[in-house]
């Protein structure tokens, strides 16, 4: 990067300096946006297995924006309602804004199926998971049935902190 103390400095060089500076800021801003993923999974359920619930608790160490909830399944039969829900652990719901954050679908039959819901539309529901608050990711079904695999994930993003 040319320095302003070279002699003489031209308007072009000054603009180059400015562009380099803004470019560095943009790069740092992008680097500061880190995506994270949490997963919860159920494998190889026999037909005699009870209705399943699998929970994964986690406590963010930084504020994290909720980007999407996703759910997929392999094998099994049709007519099973499977859900993935994000909850605040404990009795309180204020850090989940007292709302339900959920993705679900009813299986159609054998084979891979999936569904996901994004939460990045400014006019829709949005949520930031707060640092130090414990949340649960809960994967459930409503029917006793054999199923090869059910997989749920949550995609999160930390906001940029560098300048």
């Amino acid at each position: 990067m040319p320095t302003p103390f070279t002699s003489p400095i031209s308007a072009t060089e000054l603009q180059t300096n400015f562009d380099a500076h803004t470019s560095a800021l943009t790069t740092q801003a992008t680097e500061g946006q880190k995506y994270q993923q949490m997963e919860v999974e159920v494998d190889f359920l026999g037909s005699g297995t009870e209705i399943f619930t699998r929970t994964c608790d986690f406590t963010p160490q930084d504020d994290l924006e909720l980007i999407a909830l996703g759910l997929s399944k392999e094998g099994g039969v049709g007519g099973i309602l499977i859900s993935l829900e994000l909850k605040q652990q404990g009795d309180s719901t204020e850090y989940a804004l007292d709302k339900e954050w959920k993705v679900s679908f009813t299986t159609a039959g054998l084979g891979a199926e999936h569904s996901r819901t994004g939460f990045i539309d400014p006019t829709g529901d949005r949520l930031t998971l707060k640092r130090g608050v414990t949340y649960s990711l809960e994967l459930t079904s409503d029917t006793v049935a054999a199923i090869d695999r059910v997989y749920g994930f949550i995609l999160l993003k930390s906001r940029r902190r560098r300048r």
Partner: protein
Amino acid sequence: MKINIADMTQRNIRKLPSQEIGVRPGFRRLFSAGAGRTIVSAFSVKNIHSEEVRHYIVDSATDETAFVSGSADPKITIYDENFVPWQVYDIRSNKRPSVVTHAVIIDQIMISSPDFDTVWGIVGSALTRAEKVDSVNPATTALDVPRGICAAWTHRCVIADGPNIYVSDGVTLQGGSPRTFVAFNVQAVSAGPIYGMHVTAGGSLVVCATEGVFALPESANASGQIVLPDWQKLSDHQTLSYNSSAHALGRLYGLTRRGFALIDQEMGTEVPLDDPYQPRGYGRRVQRPDWREGRIYPTQRGPLCTDEVGAFHLADIHESQRSWHTMTHDQEEAKVRGTLRQRDGDELLVTEQGVYRWEGNFDGVTALDSENADEVQGVAAHTVQAPPESSPTVRYLHVGADNTSGNILMAHRGTKRDAPGSGTQRGLVIGTSSWDTGETYMPPALRSLRGAYADPTDDVAIEVGAEKPLTRINTACEVQVEGIDVQRPTGR
């Protein structure tokens, strides 16, 4: 006679960091209201965890006739630091909010107005309608969250609805929510309708009402869930409308008939806002029959008064300087509706039409280029005391400034004699200057101009100043008059 510009009524003038008088910095527009939208209110909140700042901007439909069909369509939009929208919250009201207040209680935010249901959210997260939350004290019953104006006080949210004060449960490590309001904490202050609510430097909750200004000391909070009604009257100042009181730099200011005054004590000094009674060559004279119909907002420099006059008045308390300010942006009327704050503390000015950073050497519609066609004119006006028996003839005005382009401004009784400034640029010029030990650079020097008149008058009224933001103006200007005219002046 020599006249000190610092003692004159000022417009678009600010003290430079070097304590000299100069033309105000430029307004650079960072954000524009959406098409057909008018900004109603705005504020910024910093996230205590990530240090990120979020800007909350409340706007509604500009078209007044749309209100008839119930589509004022007010919305609260949360923007990130680059004004990228993060959440648009539909207020679901058919009225343009007359006032919008907010309270931040640790990491929870309450946004309230008499014109829509109170909104609650988490700082850094989203907003939603505030629903009542049961109290952690099972012996008390939660009321519905009231409407009104709000303030954050001792980790509680306080909402004033008409003459009543609703104080929420405190937010503590043991629990408690700013959405929990119980009947024991509803207080009637006997002050009439409340139009302003603030927390002062000593931690007192202060309400501005039609019957005076009343304070509740911070110690009233110390008895547990229930707040003691220990109200004390501070002054008899009558507050008659929303947005007519503001807490700035530790003191409370309120609009009065003639201007604004300190209202946290009796007999507070009143600052008149009207311009002197004289014909103006540069912009209209600012005058209102009653300033209580205007608005006053707190800023980092002091109270800011604004109205429908198309200008705003900023009193810089630290610099002991005050000035009216106008904007050169097309269709912009400088109706201020609040301020925003950036992460590094810089304050942004919000008008009905946009958000502006207040720095740099030109007014523009973007941060770095697009200079406006109209020049920023820093002008000081004054009616000079002249002995009535003399009927002097004004002959010359001498004014100095350091601008290398743009005019030096001078006028007597509205007759202008401005001319291009003749300052010499001695600083660095991009593309021309060499950084060399043999070169000497120094700040631009003041250069004076003289304007000639032959105005016999009993009423000497001058305007002096310069164009271009950050131009330094000579604090002293000279008015030369000649002796008694053989005839009394007729026209002037």
